[in-house]
C-alpha cells in the first residue's frame, strides 16, 4: 500500500502516537523527524495528507515548516501544536490546511483524516469516471475548488476546521461536477 500520510514530528512520543493511531486506522504512514526529508518524501510518495506536528520544534524548524506548508499544493496539510505557534501558519494558502491546537486529540485527528481521505477517494473515482482523457487531474485540486472558503476560521481561537463537514463538501462537489 502506498503512503497516504506523511507525519513530521521532532517529538518522538507524539510522532509515535500519531503514527500508531493512524496505523490502527489502517492508514499507511511515514514518520519523519527531519524537515529536509519531508519535502522530498512529499514529492516521491505523493501522500494525501501531510501532518506537521510543531511540538518540540526549534524556531527555525517552525519557519521552514511554515514555508514548506505554504508551498504545498498537492496534498492536505494538518498543522498541530500550541495555539501561539500555529498562529504563525495563518497566512498564504489556507484552502488545504487544517489547524488543530494542543492538547493532541487522537480522536479528532483520526476523524479528520478519515474524512479527508474518503473525500479524496471519492473525488478520485468521480474524476476518473467523468474525465474522458483519463490522465487524472490532480485530485486534490478538485477539493480546492470544492472549498470556496478557507478551511480555517479566521479568528485565532477557533482553529479547528469546521468547514470540512461532509454535507458542505458534498454540495460543493456536486456543484463542481455539475451534478445538480
Amino acid at each position, binding site marked *: 500500500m502506498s503512503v497516504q500520510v506523511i507525519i513530521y514530528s521532532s517529538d518522538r*512520543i507524539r510522532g509515535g*502516537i500519531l503514527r*500508531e493511531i493512524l496505523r490502527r486506522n489502517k492508514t499507511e504512514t*511515514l514518520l*519523519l523527524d*527531519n524537515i529536509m526529508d519531508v519535502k522530498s518524501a512529499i514529492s516521491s510518495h505523493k501522500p494525501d495528507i501531510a501532518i506537521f506536528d510543531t511540538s518540540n520544534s526549534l524556531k527555525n524548524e517552525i519557519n521552514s515548516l511554515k514555508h514548506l506548508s505554504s508551498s504545498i499544493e498537492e496534498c492536505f496539510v494538518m498543522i498541530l501544536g500550541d495555539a501561539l505557534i500555529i498562529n504563525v501558519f495563518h497566512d498564504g494558502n489556507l484552502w488545504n490546511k487544517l489547524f488543530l491546537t494542543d*492538547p493532541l*486529540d487522537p480522536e*479528532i485527528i483520526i476523524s479528520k483524516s478519515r474524512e479527508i481521505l474518503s473525500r479524496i477517494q471519492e473525488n478520485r473515482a468521480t474524476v476518473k469516471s467523468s474525465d474522458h482523457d483519463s490522465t487524472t487531474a490532480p485530485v486534490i485540486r478538485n477539493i480546492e475548488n470544492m472549498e470556496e472558503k478557507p478551511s480555517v476560521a479566521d479568528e485565532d481561537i477557533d482553529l479547528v476546521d469546521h468547514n470540512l463537514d461532509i454535507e458542505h463538501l458534498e454540495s460543493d462537489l456536486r456543484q463542481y461536477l455539475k451534478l445538480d
Partner: protein
Amino acid sequence: MATDRTSLQERLEALKRAETDSGSMLENDKQDFNIDSKMAQAEKTLKKEVRSRERGEGESAEAPSGPVGLDIGTSHIIVAQNERRYIRTTNELNAFFTIPHSKFARNILVKNDVFFFEQDDLYYIVGYSAENFANMFDTDTRRSIKQGLLCSDEKEGLTVIQAIILSLIQKPKRLGEILCFGIPGDPIDGIGSVTYHESIIKMFINRIGFTPISINEGMAVVLSELAEHDYTGIGISIGGGMCNVCLSYLSFPVLTYSIQMGGDYIDSSAGSVVGIPATKVKAIKEKELSLIAKPKDRLTTALHIFYNELIQKLQKSMERVLSASNQIPMISKPIPIVLSGGTAMPEGFTDKFQKSLANVRLPVEISSVHLAEDPLNTTAKGALIMAMTEETPE
C-alpha cells in the same frame, strides 16, 4: 531522518504472535489450534506465572540463553528470564555491611558461604547476608543506591552493584544478547542524575557481554500489567527509595517522573520516632503491617502515619505534574492505575490509595486502581518483555 522503525505496539503484537507460535508448537501434537485458541494461548503466555526466588547462599551466577530483564532497585536487584512456561526471577538484596579485615573474620565468612568481597582493608558483606549481619550487630545495612540513583561521589556503591549483578548473571551464551534494565524517571524535587546512573550501568552491562537497553520503571509496570488496557494507563512503582510514575498512552510513555520517597523513608522515619534501627522496622513492617487494622502499638502507629504521608505526597505530585503537563493527549475513556513495588504490598494499601485519590484533582479520569500481580517482580518482568520485543543485533 526517517524515524519509521516499528513501534513498541507493533513489536508487542509480534511478540504475542511469536509466543503463540512457540506455545502451539509445544502443544502441537496434542491438538489442532484454530485462531481463537491461538489467541487464547498467546494471552496465557504473556500472562505467564512469575516464579521468583532469592539467590541461594554460595550459588553461582548463570549464563542466560535469551533476553534478560533487570531491575536495579534501591532495595532489590532482580533478574528475569523467560522460560517455556513461566517467567523466572532471581533476586538479591541491594545492601551491604562492612567489617574490618582480619583472618578470623575471613574464615567465618568463607566457612558460612557469606557473599562478600575485599576492598581497602574492609570486607564488604553483600545482599541478604548483609541484612543478617546488621541484625546481629543491632545496626543498619548500607545502601549502594540512595533514593533510586547512583551517586557519582560514592564509588563503593557501584562496586557493590556490580558484585550483586555478577552474582546473578554472567556472560550470556550468545554475545550481544539484549538486556533491558529499569531506570527511574527524573526526580521532580530531588537530587541525582538519571543520565549518569543510566550511562554507568549501560557501560557495565555492555562489558559483561550484553546489549543494554533501558526502560522507565513506571513504563515497565505498564508493559507488565496493562496489556488488556492497550498499554494505556498510569503505572506506579512504589519501592524502597522512590515512587516512579508513568502515564502511558498506547504504549508510549507520555509522561514520566519520580519522587525520592519510599519504604526506606518510612522505615527510618518510624524508626527514629520509636528509637529502633530502620533495618528492624523494615523486618517488622514486611512481616505484619496491615493498613486496614487499627495500629496496635507505637511502631505501627508511626508506620500508619508515614504511609499516609507517602500516599499524600505521591498523589499531590501526580496532581501537580499531570496538571502542568501539555504532553498528555486527550483521552476520552477513564484510565486505570496499577500499583507495584514492595511498599504497595501491605494489606489495605490499594484501598487507601484509591480512597485518598478523592482529595486530588487529576486531568484524566481514573477507572480503577489495582495492585500488580506480583509487586516485587513487576519491573523486572516489564523489562524482560521490553527486551523480548527488541531485535538482537547481528
